[in-house]
């Protein structure tokens, strides 16, 4: 599976040094680099990427962990978890559009404040979206990354014993925030570190969100690279390849910076942990974490509502909070155009989810034998932990850097822009998620069920088919739904490997962003959200219905 990444890298490396016979570059040289560094937009674009990436990651982590520290174990925490987990399946493009619909000068927030108390009769001439410092971009990223880190944090928490340590700390007089930060955070951070790096890599290199809500002159590096790679002047392809490597270098710098930050926090944190400060009155801080997080998920949900309203809005004057009339004309008018991207999205999503599921099941079945292990905790886990790291690689490398290489590589072998390469590039991102979500269920499966079935005389295939598969139906379908959602959300892989020949809801929605027709954008973004949502409903509903008379299968599982 990883060979495409390796080839992708190679495919970026060679053109970066001027070698790409297909485009007339047949000798190694440094001219693409010279051209890259001579470009006036490069430095500001690079700084912007670093700033956005670090700020979005830092804020998301702070918000998530702050909320954990303040509220873990309470009812608000459980309610929050329920509200946040559906957001995980919402494509970031949808969330971003939602945010844009709220924040824009003519968006819902300003409409609600107008004409009173703001006094606006026409939308103010403010640059809220696409602001040059990337604030709105950072906000959009936080909206998407907080739910992700939240769920990662919860699964990390499940692996440690937190309740008793917290109780011990509280009994020594530590406030909830201090108790959690001093004892629990140091334990779970190592486990969420890889996801945090994935967030960092994603935020530095994100393309679709930046196109919608990021600064445009100059744009962040990823957008600049995309422009170059699509420049009619083929010379820029070489520069884009060099830029892809430069982006990797930036990521390494960012991760290095993060490392230093970790060190610093560790040093200072240790002093703070040992100084004995109880910090027992932390109510204000705790509630502010609650408030900020509530605002953030409210933004997400309100944004999606705003899109829904826009998609059925008839005439809608500016300061009005709601449209004067509602109509389905926009939907009716788009019906023809939507059919192709909709079916494309559907089959790519289904196919990649299914292939990823089959590969994961095969792999997991091979590695996790049902046989009684010496100590079930470590023997199986060590093996399982190895693969995910390799699988994580496509999530840790900037998409642009190797997808561009994949593109040149398939061009080279003549598979350019076929559905095979399209599916392949989707799988790179779908497989890790499907595998990770399945492997947890596989590891917690009680292997004695398999042993019992074997000893009843069932063949291994029968045991798998009649016992293991049905018992794992819930996590299996959930993993598939996740894979489907991941595939639906892919922008850059679809664009680059499909070469524009396979428009999906996501590529169409992003393409519409510059046009600014909110009614049409609302339709595309809503559909884009609806597909994964339906997949999740099926994934939850089907086993619940099939096993409606089987109580033991109701409780465990989950998203």
């Amino acid at each position, binding site marked *: 599976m990883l060979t495409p990444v390796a080839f992708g890298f190679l495919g970026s490396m060679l053109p970066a040094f001027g070698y790409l016979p297909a485009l007339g570059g047949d000798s190694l040289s440094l001219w693409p680099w010279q051209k890259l560094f001579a470009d006036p937009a490069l430095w500001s674009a690079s700084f912007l990427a670093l700033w956005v990436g670090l700020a979005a990651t830092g804020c998301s982590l702070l918000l998530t962990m702050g909320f954990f520290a303040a509220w873990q174990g309470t009812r608000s925490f459980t309610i929050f978890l329920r509200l946040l987990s559906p957001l995980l399946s919402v494509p970031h493009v949808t969330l971003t559009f939602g945010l844009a619909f709220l924040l824009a000068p003519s968006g819902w927030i300003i409409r609600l404040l107008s004409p009173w108390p703001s006094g606006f009769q026409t939308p103010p001439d403010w640059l809220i979206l696409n602001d040059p410092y990337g604030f709105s971009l950072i906000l959009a990223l936080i909206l998407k990354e907080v739910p992700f880190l939240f769920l990662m944090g919860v699964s990390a928490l499940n692996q440690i014993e937190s309740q008793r340590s917290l109780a011990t700390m509280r009994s020594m007089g530590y406030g909830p925030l201090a108790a959690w930060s001093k004892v629990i955070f140091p334990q779970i951070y190592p486990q969420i570190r890889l996801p945090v790096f994935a967030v960092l890599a994603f935020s530095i290199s994100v393309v679709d969100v930046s196109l919608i809500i990021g600064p445009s002159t100059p744009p962040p590096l990823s957008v600049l690279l995309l422009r170059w790679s699509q420049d009619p002047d083929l010379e820029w392809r070489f520069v884009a390849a060099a830029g892809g490597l430069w982006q990797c270098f930036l990521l390494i710098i960012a991760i290095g910076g993060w490392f230093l930050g970790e060190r610093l926090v560790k040093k200072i944190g240790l002093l703070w942990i040992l100084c004995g400060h109880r910090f027992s009155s932390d109510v204000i801080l705790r509630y502010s974490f609650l408030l900020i997080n509530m605002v953030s998920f409210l933004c997400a949900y309100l944004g999606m509502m705003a899109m829904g309203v826009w998609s059925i809005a008839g005439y809608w004057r500016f300061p009005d909070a709601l449209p004067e009339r509602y109509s389905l004309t926009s939907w009716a008018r788009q019906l023809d155009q939507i059919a192709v991207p909709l079916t494309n999205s559907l089959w790519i999503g289904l196919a990649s989810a299914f292939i990823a599921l089959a590969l994961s099941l095969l792999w997991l079945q091979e590695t996790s034998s049902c046989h*009684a292990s*010496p100590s079930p905790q470590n023997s199986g886990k060590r093996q399982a932990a190895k693969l995910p790291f390799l699988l994580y690689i496509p999530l840790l490398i900037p998409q642009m850097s190797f997808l561009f290489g994949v593109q040149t590589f398939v061009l080279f072998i003549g598979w350019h822009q076929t559905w095979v390469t399209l599916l392949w590039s989707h799988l790179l991102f779908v497989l890790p998620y499907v595998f990770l979500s399945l492997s947890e269920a596989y590891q917690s499966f009680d292997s004695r069920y398999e042993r019992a079935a074997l000893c009843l005389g069932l063949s291994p295939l029968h045991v798998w088919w009649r016992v293991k598969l049905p018992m794992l139906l819930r996590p299996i379908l959930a993993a598939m739904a996740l894979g489907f959602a991941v595939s639906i959300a892919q922008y850059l892989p679809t664009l680059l490997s499909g070469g524009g020949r396979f428009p999906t809801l996501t590529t169409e929605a992003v393409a519409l962003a510059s046009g600014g027709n909110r009614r049409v954008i609302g339709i595309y973004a809503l559909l884009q959200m609806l597909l994964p949502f339906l997949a999740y409903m099926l994934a939850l509903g089907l086993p619940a219905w099939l096993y409606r008379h089987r109580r033991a299968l109701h409780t465990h599982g989950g998203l």
Partner: protein
Amino acid sequence: MTSLGSQESTCSGAPPLCEGLSLRDIVITLEVPLFDPISLDIPPGDIMTLMGSSGVGKSSLLAFLTGTLSRSFKTHGQVYIHQKEITQTPPEKRHLGILFQDDLLFPHLSVGQNLALAIPKSVKGEKRQEKIYAALEEAGLTGYENRDPATLSGGQKARIALLRVLLSEPKALLLDEPFSKIDPETRSTFRYFVYDHVRTLKLPTLLVTHDPQDASIAQGRLKELKKT
């Protein structure tokens, strides 16, 4: 209770001369051997009790006998059932029934389906249904065929679990502390339920337990697994 290990010394090493379940010089090694080499002969209908401190490898021994021990262990020795060696036979063809601490009824199947799953392919048509009804009757659970196993009481689940094993027509039975998780009131009834079936069906039975009472009621020989 008879004295410990009088018989195994006589036929150690050699293939068994008698019917039943026989173990020869079994050693399981994970870096170091877990216990002293063990040899046993359990004639049909006998219940041999195997005791030993926790962690000595009782469950590993049972996993080895059923052929489901992880490959990270090194093993040595032979297993025979009715004088036929099964050490290399795949688990599903050994015909060794095993009962665990937990009932392990498959949660996605009804009580009747759990039983049906165990009946060999060779039993066909209405015969299968008859066997299920007979088993349910034996468990005192007539009419429970379509019930969700999760709705049964602990004792009921345990009885179904035993009958499921028996329906698979095992040639010997392995019991991995099957009484330890059952509440004390039902424990002794279930114990007799198991022992009675073992004797009627003349199954050679190996019982692994912590509880000396399990052993004394079994009235069979007692063997201790010793750490090396």
